[in-house]
């Protein structure tokens, strides 16, 4: 994970499942019918009311037909009311279906692994066979090459390479060993070489894999706080329109006859927010699904929603903001020495140096000065780095090349550093870099500046975050000077230098006390308290069990920069809900213009002037509105699953744009749609 790709969003584009996947749609259609059970549908008040109304209209149509009354119009309304309900359950079924396939493959990985239960820690030969599901927390098991790790646990002893493809999808094996930050193993993964003794940390049924499966299947899906609030709003609006429509029975009988029940039912169902009501749960499921596809698992939808609300992002410097290893970033020649001469000497001094730092010097000299490293000349002797000398280098026929800590080199050469160079070295240190002196045969040629390199593109990402109103805070163990320099270069808003776990925790608590929501990523055991305290804690899959338990999200790719995308996915989820709610409510204007003149035209023919769409007949007007109301749900399923596009601009600009599209669009679209449907109905003589 150290050699990370550039941070461009394109590199992480989430793989989407085509909405038109035929098998998936077929299964979803079947599930949609099963979801019609009113006892289950009652969780969704708007669609539940629609179903009750559909049942009522169906019964009345049947009774009417039995008495030989007009049938076609009422049956048409009944059919489309049912379709409205089915389309809504279908949307949810499609959203769920996308996670099912993934859950299936996980379930196979879990299988029924056999475990080797150790009786004593100090004797690896003495074990009993057990089923994985019989293991208790605290049991010690032996896992050898070719065995599947039976359950989640902490390595007590041993080191092994483990293939975690079952969980992460990445087939290259990773090293797992006792102690340190890579001691956690996941049930269902495969030990490829060597052996491990593992202490089981998860009870059967609550392992990481189990939780993943339930999450993906949505079985444990609970409504998130925002969803609950939105549901209440929609239920409230449903009641308001129920009152408005029911009161028409009395109001309309003042001067004429009240409209028939199917007509009132049509008015009710078109006015209540069926569009968002039908798509609400699909939006939530799809949001979780987007995270899963992104290889991030959230323990709850609540966590995803919280991600959208985050105000402060705590990011580790190493591996997230910088590449994490120091690299050559400049040559400072001593007075009287040409920069190229220094570069050539630096290349020779580093020729035998296989560390990343040494290789970065060769790369830098080639890229900046065109100095190509020669092959190791015959008779050359590599002088390795030792803790005593703190120098390394190369002895050639024509001289001895050395590089190392500035004071060590001066001491070994027995000379003083020229004041101008000493000043430059001082400056490098002050700016957070590491100066290395280069010498040849008793002469100091100059210094190499080693720096922790900030990843390309990260500065722009932070600027983006700032526009979204999110403060980024860099966390590092470096001293203040170094931290300040890197913070300035990366463009973060704040930094936490020489950070201890307590300081991190303190920082989070302080920010939360000011009413801010905090997100952080972490992998070590000492990150666990901060991960648990943060509103969004993204733990790395490679991290310790403690960290994974503490966070409310786990990144299977163990890439802390993903926190940024997680925030975007959270925001997208909320925006999609808001946009479709606005659209749904705005639709009512056109529906009034379609239905009200049609309903009252018997009592007051003059109200026909409000039939601005010039719909063919009262029947076709009512039917068109009901059909539009049903079809718009299906039409918006792809948008609900994909999510509304999110752009990192300020809230005001975002609101203006979305109000324009979904508010104004919500007013205009149904006028066009209802008119078109009316034309089609007329064309086929159905009205």
């Amino acid at each position: 994970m150290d050699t990370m790709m550039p941070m461009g969003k394109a590199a992480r584009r989430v793989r989407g499942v085509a909405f038109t996947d035929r098998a998936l749609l077929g299964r979803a259609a079947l599930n949609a019918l099963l979801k019609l059970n009113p006892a289950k549908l009652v969780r969704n008040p708007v669609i539940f009311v629609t179903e009750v109304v559909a049942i009522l209209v169906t019964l009345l149509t049947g009774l009417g037909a039995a008495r030989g009354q007009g049938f076609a119009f009422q049956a048409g309304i009944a059919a489309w009311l049912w379709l409205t309900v089915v389309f809504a359950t279908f949307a949810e079924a499609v959203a769920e279906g996308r996670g099912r396939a993934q859950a299936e493959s996980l379930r196979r990985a879990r299988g029924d692994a056999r475990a080797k239960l150790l009786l004593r820690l100090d004797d690896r030969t003495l074990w009993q066979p057990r089923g994985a599901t019989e293991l208790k927390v605290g049991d010690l098991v032996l896992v050898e090459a070719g065995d599947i790790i039976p359950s989640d646990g902490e390595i007590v002893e041993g080191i092994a390479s483990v293939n975690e493809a079952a969980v992460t999808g990445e087939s290259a094996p990773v090293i797992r060993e006792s102690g340190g930050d890579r001691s956690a193993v996941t049930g269902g993964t495969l030990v490829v070489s060597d052996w491990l003794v593992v202490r089981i940390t998860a009870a059967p049924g609550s392992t990481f894999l189990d939780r993943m499966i339930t999450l993906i299947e949505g079985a444990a899906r609970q409504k998130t706080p925002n969803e609950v609030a939105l549901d209440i709003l929609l239920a409230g609006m449903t009641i308001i329109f129920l009152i408005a429509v029911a009161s028409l029975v009395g109001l309309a009988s003042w001067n004429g006859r009240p409209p028939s029940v199917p007509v009132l039912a049509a008015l009710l169902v078109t006015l209540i927010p069926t569009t968002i009501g039908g798509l609400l749960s699909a939006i939530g499921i799809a949001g979780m699904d987007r995270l899963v596809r992104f290889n991030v698992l959230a323990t709850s939808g609540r966590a995803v929603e919280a991600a959208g609300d985050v105000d402060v992002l705590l990011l580790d410097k190493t591996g997230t903001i910088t590449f994490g290893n120091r690299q050559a970033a400049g040559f400072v020649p001593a007075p009287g020495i040409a920069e190229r001469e220094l570069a050539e000497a630096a290349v020779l001094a580093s020729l035998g140096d296989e560390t990343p730092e040494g290789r970065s010097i060769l790369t830098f000299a080639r890229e900046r000065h065109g100095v190509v490293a020669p092959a190791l000349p015959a008779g050359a002797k590599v002088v390795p780095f030792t803790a005593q000398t703190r120098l390394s280098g190369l002895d050639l026929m024509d001289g001895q090349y050395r590089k190392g800590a500035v004071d060590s080199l001066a001491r070994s050469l027995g000379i003083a550093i020229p004041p101008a160079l000493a000043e430059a070295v001082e400056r490098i240190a002050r700016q957070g870099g590491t100066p290395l002196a280069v010498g040849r045969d008793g002469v100091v040629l100059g210094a190499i500046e080693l720096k922790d390199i900030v990843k390309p593109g990260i500065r722009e990402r932070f600027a983006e975050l700032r526009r979204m109103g999110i403060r980024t805070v860099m966390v590092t163990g470096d001293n203040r000077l170094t931290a300040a320099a890197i913070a300035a270069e990366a463009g973060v808003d704040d930094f936490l230098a020489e950070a201890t776990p307590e300081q991190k925790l303190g920082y989070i608590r302080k920010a939360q006390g000011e009413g801010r929501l905090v997100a952080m990523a972490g992998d070590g055991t000492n990150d666990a308290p901060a991960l648990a305290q943060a509103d969004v804690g993204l733990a790395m899959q490679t991290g310790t069990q403690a960290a994974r338990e503490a966070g409310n999200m786990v990144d299977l790719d163990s890439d802390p920069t993903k926190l940024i995308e997680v925030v975007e996915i959270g925001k997208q989820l909320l925006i999609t809900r808001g946009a479709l709610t606005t659209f749904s409510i705005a639709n009512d204007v056109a529906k009034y213009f379609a239905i009200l003149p049609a309903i009252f035209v018997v009592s007051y023919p003059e109200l026909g002037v409000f039939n601005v769409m010039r719909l063919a007949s009262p029947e076709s007007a009512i039917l068109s509105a009901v059909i539009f109301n049903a079809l718009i749900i299906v039409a918006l399923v792809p948008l609900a699953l994909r999510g509304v596009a999110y752009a990192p601009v300020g809230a005001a600009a975002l609101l203006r744009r979305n109000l324009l599209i979904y508010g104004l669009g919500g007013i205009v679209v149904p006028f066009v749609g209802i008119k078109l449907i009316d034309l089609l109905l007329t064309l086929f003589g159905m009205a």
Partner: protein
Amino acid sequence: MTLIGWAQIALVLACVVAAAIPLGRYMAAVAAGHVTFLAPVERAFYAAAGIDPRQGQGWRGYTLAMLATNAAGFLLLYALLRGQGGLPLNPQGFDGLTPWLAFNTAVSFVTNTNWQAYGGEAALSYLSQMAGLTVQNFLSAATGMALALAVSRAFARGGVKDLGNFWADLVRVTLYVLIPLSLLVGLAFVAMGMPQTLAPYAEATTLEGVRQVVPLGPAAFQIAIKHLGTNGGGFFNVNAAHPFEGPTALATALQIWSQQVIPFGLALTFGAIVGDIRQGRALLLVMLAYVLAGTWAVYASETGGNPLHLALGIDAVQGNMEGKELRFGQALVALFTATTTGASCGAVNAMFDSFTPLGGLVPLFLIQLGEVLPGGVGSGLYGMLVFALLAVFVAGLMVGRTPEYLGKKVQAREVKLAMLAVLVLPAVILGFTAVALVLPAAVASIPAAGPHGLSEMLYAYSSAAGNNGSAFGGVTADTPWMNVTLGIAMMLGRFAYAVPVMAIAGSLAAKPRAVGSAGSFPTHGPLFAGLLAGVILILGGLQFMPALALGPLAEHVSLLAGKTF
């Protein structure tokens, strides 16, 4: 419409806004306890009642205190109205009111509705007017203002239960705002020629030699608080259309000013309390925009005239003048109408029953939108804040965060309570109207046939539930059915709305107040004002469309087609 007419309208509104700005800040200072020029009087009240004004109350305590005060006010007023026959200051010797009428009237004045099922000069003694109605004019207005202050504080505070002290708020707004303003306006009214006397009715002989009784009374000061407190209960039966209530055009303009100045000022008080005056300004602009739109609609429709009359060749210059204040013209009538219905006042200087159908639709719709434009004193502000919360909730999601208003997260509890409050008006108005239109006992109250009759009944319940109190006219209100149902509508419109709002305040006060960022939803600019205006129309108005289509709209299109009922 004429330029001079619009100039009158603009002048009055400019005076309102100019006065609302300092008044808003002043009321914020009153709310904070910084205004103390009557401190000895204040302390005497607290000492007499054994109250510590610094003792904060949670939303439950505050609300219970409010309910208890109003319940006591209701019982006293009911007893007074029933027993006025045996009480002093009754020079005309009026009997006590019937139980139904006394119930209706007592509820009406306690709830700041001032629906009048009685005729003032023909039924009430001076004592009932002064000690009963005028006291309630102050008390109900002060109650609304106190609630608005408590709700405002909920936004300004974080992590607390304390919303302030109801008794202290009640005393302070009465002593430092309502009484001083009423004295000033009352004196101005006396100067403009309104009667203020305890003498019996005057008797005169007209030029034709007919003996006429001219009703008098302590009118001017009661009329001052009637407008300032957006009560609207006229001293005389025909309200502000009576020449003694509206002696001059200036008096009419001052009445309009009085109705609006406190509700508009309170919007800015809210801004001052939450520490960002721009927030209050955004609410004020929405209110002002609706008042202007309503005024325009009435003005345009009424000056447009009645198409049936125009077809007969009648001079179209004046427009429809039936039932209008003939001395002052259409502009002041239009502004007065939009103001009195938008501000939940209910005073009238023209008879809506005689308006053109669209002209009559405007006051009806302004009431149905929730009495928040600018609404009654206090109740307008807290009603507006309910809509603001809903606007933030619906649209706020579209910026990708849990919606926040002024740093307070809007979550399930707030949405639930806000919807509960918003439900009250449609349930009461549409429910009662629908029943009344099929119930023979109620139908007997409506003489008009066709859509106009529906409008009259719809207006009566809208006015009651919205705590407006104005009458469309035409409906016979003093029947047991109407007295009881309208009384219930008034009670629900006031208290079934205020209690959930106070619960919201309690919930908001307990939440931490988050600091804003570039990612939070800005609620002070024109974008939010536009959004709020739209949400008021959609969540407050859409549900009344079918009813309006069967009433004023049907009447309008029938009239255009030359059809009468």
